[in-house]
């Protein structure tokens, strides 16, 4: 029943053919259509600006005070594109191939190919907007190789690529706000999607300053609301990242795909205490020069300097001689977990591994290392109070990115007609594992170059139809329900804070559905999560008024949605009895302890249907056909 609507024809021609065959809305008619875009990160801001430039009336929503604050701002490393400016053998096909392979063969070929195709346009677009990409002395764009890629296809703006790309999209959006084609609703939290006759017709938002709830209608609704990494409580995501928009859409009929796929990034600063509120990513580039090790001896209390070379266990270099410290993210993360679980962890809480620059400093000199990583070393010192020039850094994996998300077809439409999903919030392109520097690419591909074409297919037949008026009973009902739900939290008058419950949920999900998963643990989580949710709903304490700024109240709705979502995530992880990419089932590994896929039984997208709070979700499968890429077992030995 799940039809991805993949166009016919050879893979390299699908997108061109499709662009030709989708219905067009003629330029004069575009102003007759209203489109709601929720989220103004890379995906949302680029979509809203591009749709407005085409002539549509756009209403853009963000819970932030300004679009420039979206979590995309934090991306450091860079953005991939198959420009082949280095003449090192890159091509659309190679980027496509690397992405499908990197995703451990759990993504849809046609989408990935299109992503690789439009990647080149993204760089042109962003350069024209004035994004200050790194340049060579000759004035041409610079590149680097990133995340173990064998070609240099990553474009970057110092260590602030996400910031600069987001500012570019935000500025394009601001120009359209000025032109009157976009109405921007900031500090507006979307709390429900409204459906009439099976079609998305609007949303309900809560004004975070006044607490008032509002209805907005349109011919189509686009969600670009980011990933769900904060289900783990601790992650590298910004504090406000959440699953609410996607989850509310799911409850209204949008299938949720592969919620168990999460990327755990290997190089983050370890947790230092219970009070810890978030984890900080240290750029992956550090693995180019840092050597990762732990003491060979268990529970070794000596400081790093007192441990002689022969008693240091360089586990990645030993286990993976050809890739060494540069193995892919999931492999590096899992191995760190293994050594820490064995009792070899370092630091006051014995929860990290060393990333040691002593060899690089001895080889290249302190100045060369400072030149390369100075900013990162300063950041590390600011956070930990330790000087990485003299002591090895301590690192540990942390949740970073979520490959799962709302299921979308080739047009990026969810299973609810008229409801689209872009960026990290959808499941579309990364399979079971995302390559470094590919999230920025995907968000901007979706927003600048895919949706503006594909949305016409849905809109064209609606020419002449007015949007459903917000006086319609479907809106009244949704408004009343959002208002009731939000206000109800201040009436619970329990004893524990929202933060407490979020942290407890995070512990369960991290323990049983983190870097390694097994049946017993997942089943345990499936009983612990509903129990915690029930306690939370009866005992959470939210002070203050619902009729004004109330940060606890903003958060409680989000944690409530995480509580439901976490259960689906665990269920998905339990059903997928294979290992693939970021999803490692201990029952499914090779004799050497590597992830073992089961293509025979699991070569599909798992898309879950909500059947109500008391019913089990129903699994729908989109079978994945690989016509262009040969499935292989990844090996980094």
């Amino acid at each position, binding site marked *: 029943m799940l039809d991805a609507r993949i166009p016919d024809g050879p893979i390299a021609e699908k997108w061109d053919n499709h662009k030709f065959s989708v219905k067009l809305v003629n330029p004069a008619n575009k102003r007759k259509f209203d489109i709601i875009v929720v989220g103004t990160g890379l995906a949302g801001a680029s979509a809203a600006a591009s749709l407005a430039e085409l002539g549509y009336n756009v209403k853009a929503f963000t819970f932030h005070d300004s679009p420039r604050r979206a979590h995309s701002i934090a991306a450091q490393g860079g953005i991939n594109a198959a420009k082949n400016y280095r003449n090192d053998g890159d091509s659309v096909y190679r980027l496509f191939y690397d992405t499908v392979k990197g995703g451990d063969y759990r993504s849809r070929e046609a989408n990935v190919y299109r992503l690789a195709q439009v990647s080149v346009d993204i760089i042109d677009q962003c350069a024209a907007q004035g994004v200050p990409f790194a340049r060579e002395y000759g004035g041409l764009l610079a590149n680097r190789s990133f995340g173990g890629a064998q070609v240099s296809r990553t474009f970057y703006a110092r260590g602030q690529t996400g910031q600069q790309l987001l*500012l570019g999209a935000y500025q394009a959006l601001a120009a359209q706000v000025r032109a009157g084609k976009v109405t921007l609703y900031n500090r507006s939290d979307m709390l429900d999607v409204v459906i009439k006759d099976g079609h998305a017709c609007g949303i309900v938002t809560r004004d975070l300053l006044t607490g008032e709830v509002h209805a907005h209608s349109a011919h189509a609704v686009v969600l670009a609301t980011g990933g769900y990494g904060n289900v783990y409580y601790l992650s590298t995501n*910004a504090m406000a990242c959440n699953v609410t928009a996607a989850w509310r859409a799911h409850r209204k009929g949008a299938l949720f795909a592969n919620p168990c796929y999460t990327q755990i990034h290997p190089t983050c600063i370890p947790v230092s205490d219970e009070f810890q509120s978030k984890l900080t990513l240290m750029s992956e580039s550090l693995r180019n020069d840092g050597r990762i090790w732990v003491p060979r001896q268990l529970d070794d209390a000596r400081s790093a300097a007192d441990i002689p070379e022969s008693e240091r266990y360089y586990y990645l270099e030993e286990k993976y001689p050809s890739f060494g410290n540069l193995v892919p993210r999931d492999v590096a993360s899992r191995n760190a977990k293994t050594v820490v679980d064995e009792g070899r962890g370092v630091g*006051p809480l014995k929860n990290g591994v060393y990333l040691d620059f002593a060899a690089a400093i001895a080889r290249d000199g302190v100045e060369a290392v400072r030149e390369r990583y100075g900013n990162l070393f300063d950041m590390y010192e600011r956070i930990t109070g330790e000087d990485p020039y003299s002591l090895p850094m301590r690192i540990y994996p942390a949740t970073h990115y979520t490959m799962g998300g709302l299921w979308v077809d080739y047009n990026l439409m969810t299973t609810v007609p008229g409801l689209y999903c872009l960026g990290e919030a959808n499941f579309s392109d990364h399979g079971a594992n995302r390559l470094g520097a590919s999230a920025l690419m995907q968000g901007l591909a979706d927003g600048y170059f895919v949706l503006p074409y594909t949305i016409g297919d849905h809109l064209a037949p609606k020419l002449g139809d007015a949007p459903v008026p917000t006086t319609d009973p479907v809106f009244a009902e949704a408004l009343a329900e959002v208002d009731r739900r939000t206000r109800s939290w201040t009436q619970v008058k329990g004893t524990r804070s929202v933060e407490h419950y979020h942290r407890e949920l995070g512990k369960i999900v991290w323990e049983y559905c983190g870097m390694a998963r097994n049946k017993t643990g997942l089943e345990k989580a499936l009983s612990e999560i509903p129990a915690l949710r029930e306690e939370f709903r009866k005992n959470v304490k939210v002070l203050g008024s619902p009729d004004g700024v109330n940060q606890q109240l903003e958060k409680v709705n989000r944690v409530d949605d995480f509580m439901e979502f976490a259960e689906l995530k665990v269920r998905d992880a339990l059903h997928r009895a294979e290992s693939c990419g970021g999803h490692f089932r201990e029952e499914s590994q090779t004799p050497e302890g590597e992830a073992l896929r089961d293509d025979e039984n699991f070569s599909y997208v798992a898309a879950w249907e909500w059947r109500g709070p008391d019913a089990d979700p129903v699994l729908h499968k989109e079978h994945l056909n690989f016509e262009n890429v040969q499935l292989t077992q990844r090996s980094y030995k």
Partner: protein
Amino acid sequence: MSSTESTDNGSVEQDRALNLKLRIWRQDGPHAEGSFLDVDADQIPTDASFLEMLDMVNERLIEDDIEPITFPHDCREGICGTCGVMINGQAHGPERATATCQLHMRKFRDGDQIVIEPWRAAAFPVLKDLMVDRRAFDRIIEAGGYISAPTGTPQDANEIPVPKEVADTAMDAAACIGCGACVAACPNSAAQLFTSAKLAHLNVLPQGQPERWRRTEAMVETMEDYFGSCTNHGECHEACPKEISLDFIAFMNRDYIKSKSKNRSLASQ
């Protein structure tokens, strides 16, 4: 501070916790009267960030049935520009080039009194407690802080070479996170540093030339509608978590003067 590996647990705990006296600004809304709340923040670990210290204070307030303090924050990595408070009269506190979220408690001493207030500027009304409204910044960007390049129209990126020095200068300016510390630190609540950073980013680039003079006039004049005037104190630069250079203000002033005649002659063509 003693090294973590070599000390035993007991002394680590003592070394690493502070007892602080906080005076925190509380204000219900833009039109409400505000006042200070005095709270003791005991046993704050030195490894905590400033915002984690506030988290802990809030958890304790909630236990005592007191509404927690509203403070702005999101990325906690010094990049989104959401956070920012006055700490003992300094925007973002005592550490140079550091946003509030990146400030750690090891910069404070046991027994310190810390006064915490929102940004104070007419253009940034207090919304609640430590949170202010910075939408005036968005208005400045909307006035012209962009290069018009509709999606799908540009040529190949390498067809517009940008000398490395120019790209680096543009990046130096573009590093601004829009937190508003410059305005908060300025005795006149001027927004010259913020505005000039965006203006210089776009005006130095070849792609930014066609709209240069229109952009300059529009951004500067919108800025003046909301913010005070610059009298070259330089406090903005001192407070800036990204160390945006004062040179950009001089650049903006020059471009603004030129823009007047350039725009007139462009209009008469």
